[in-house]
């Protein structure tokens, strides 16, 4: 077995003008000493979908949660995350403002136990937005953008928990959109959904691509190939390969990448 540190990596770099976010030597440590991510350096292109693939324990979710500082409480994160000329991994960064710009959707749908409408406007009201008419418009548009409007428009005051799993997840996307983020992080958003809901969710993401930058963790190769523009392959905490999705899937450079992709497509 080859030492993982000596495996040759194949990371594509862009013109820095095209990037919206990039990481440099990002490493994550749990419990002080256990390292889960090793020097990840990736650039993310504006208005694109990037898929992070790899087996479980490969560090892809850890990487994702570190970008909007959701891991601060449980892990030590070293390295840099560049966003609009700022290293947002610094301690003086206002993480609350940051998360309004870099939103997140989780693996398990997690709507609040409130009404559908309230789910979407809760954070807006907390930010001091009070105009009812404007809030109503935002509710409608974010639900439309998340392709949920037609299904729920007559029941906006119904409990969000009454929705199906797939609907709940699209509600979570609508909720994230309402805060007007620039980047959306998606942590295996379809893993808890059935095939029909998954395909609806994927349609939604495709529609959103021209307005938002999305970074999505997935362990479903078909899904990655269906909707992503770029793909990064993680293995045991290291990023081994990063390129256009097409290239990664049709012409993987490394042996480990090739084995993984072939094995996953079955």
């Amino acid at each position, binding site marked *: 077995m080859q030492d993982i540190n000596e495996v040759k990596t194949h990371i594509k770099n862009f013109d820095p003008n095209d990037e919206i976010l990039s990481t440099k030597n990002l490493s994550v440590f749990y419990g002080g000493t256990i390292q889960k991510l090793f020097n990840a350096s990736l650039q993310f292109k504006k208005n694109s979908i990037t898929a992070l693939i790899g087996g479980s324990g490969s560090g892809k979710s850890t990487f994702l949660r570190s970008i909007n500082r959701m891991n601060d*409480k449980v892990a030590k994160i070293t390295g840099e995350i560049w966003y609009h000329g700022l290293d947002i991994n610094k301690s003086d960064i206002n993480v609350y403002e940051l998360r*309004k710009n870099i939103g997140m959707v989780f693996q398990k749908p*997690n709507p609040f136990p409130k009404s559908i409408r309230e789910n979407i406007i809760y954070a807006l009201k907390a930010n001091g937005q009070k105009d009812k008419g404007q809030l109503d418009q935002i509710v409608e548009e974010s639900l439309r953008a998340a392709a949920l409007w037609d299904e729920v428009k007559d029941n906006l005051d119904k409990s969000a928990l009454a929705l199906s799993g797939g609907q709940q997840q699209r509600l979570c996307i609508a909720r994230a959109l309402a805060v007007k983020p620039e980047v959306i992080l998606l942590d295996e958003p379809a893993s808890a959904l059935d095939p029909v809901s998954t395909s609806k969710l994927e349609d939604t993401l495709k529609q959103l691509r021209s307005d938002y930058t999305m970074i999505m963790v997935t362990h479903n190769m078909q899904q990655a190939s269906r909707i992503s523009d770029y793909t990064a392959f993680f293995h045991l905490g290291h990023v081994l390969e990063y390129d256009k999705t097409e290239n990664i899937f049709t012409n993987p450079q490394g042996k480990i990448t090739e084995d993984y992709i072939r094995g996953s497509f079955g």
Partner: protein
Amino acid sequence: MNAKTRDKVATAVIYALVSVVVVILFGIIGNILVSGVPHLSWHFLTSEASSYQAGGGVRDQLFNSLYLLVLTMIISLPIALGAAIYLAEYATDNWFTSLIRTTIEILSSLPSIVVGLFGYLLFVVQFGFGFSIISGALALTFFNLPTLTSNIEQAIAGVPQTQRDAGLALGLSNWKTIRGIVLPAALPGILTGVILSAGRIFGEAAALIYTAGQSGSTIDYSNWNPFSPTSFLNVMRPAETLAVHIWKVNTEGIIPDADIVSAATSALLIIVVILFNLGARALGNHLYRKLTAAKS
């Protein structure tokens, strides 16, 4: 004796011991209700206690018990809530957190008579409050804090982490997430905890005999001025509760119908405590169903 016989004997012994416990409980509850309920008349509930004649009631004691309960909750709930939020949400795994937990455990293990005597030293003597409702409410607060805190902490910790993630990912502060999302979701558990500790407070006497006092003053229920010495709302007046009344008439009282008064008061106490217990469960279930309802 072979293994099979031994198994049978052990099973028989366990069933016998369990039956004894069940019989004891029903004996206790039955005895109190049978001897007490017949004397629980409207007259008993609405007339003043008598100091040496038969036929007294427990009107003032009943009111004092409820008043003390409310005051204690008003004082202890914010503190317990704050401490529970700190422990469930902010505390990290370090020496300070374990110091806090140790401190709360110590407080919960102190005998209530010791807590009452501390209240006596500090409020009755040092601060000069005298035997008063406020001294009693503060002593009961100390007695109540550890249980209430850990009940609330459990309720908060029971809210799934994904809910917190959802709030934080929208750019809400931890505090806003806790207040707006975690606490409402934990509300059924918190209310159940509050009601259960209310039952404990209602029956507590040892912490009160040297703080709220063992005798009442004349109370005027039409005097709504809390600063007037005879007002029923005055927190500086001494007050005897139902539980203290039972102790008092049995140990120092000279009324001829002490047994009847005690039995009736005991029945009253037990009924209220059982109602609290049932109420806590019903309310918890109801709110839980409402919060997670498929249709609302």
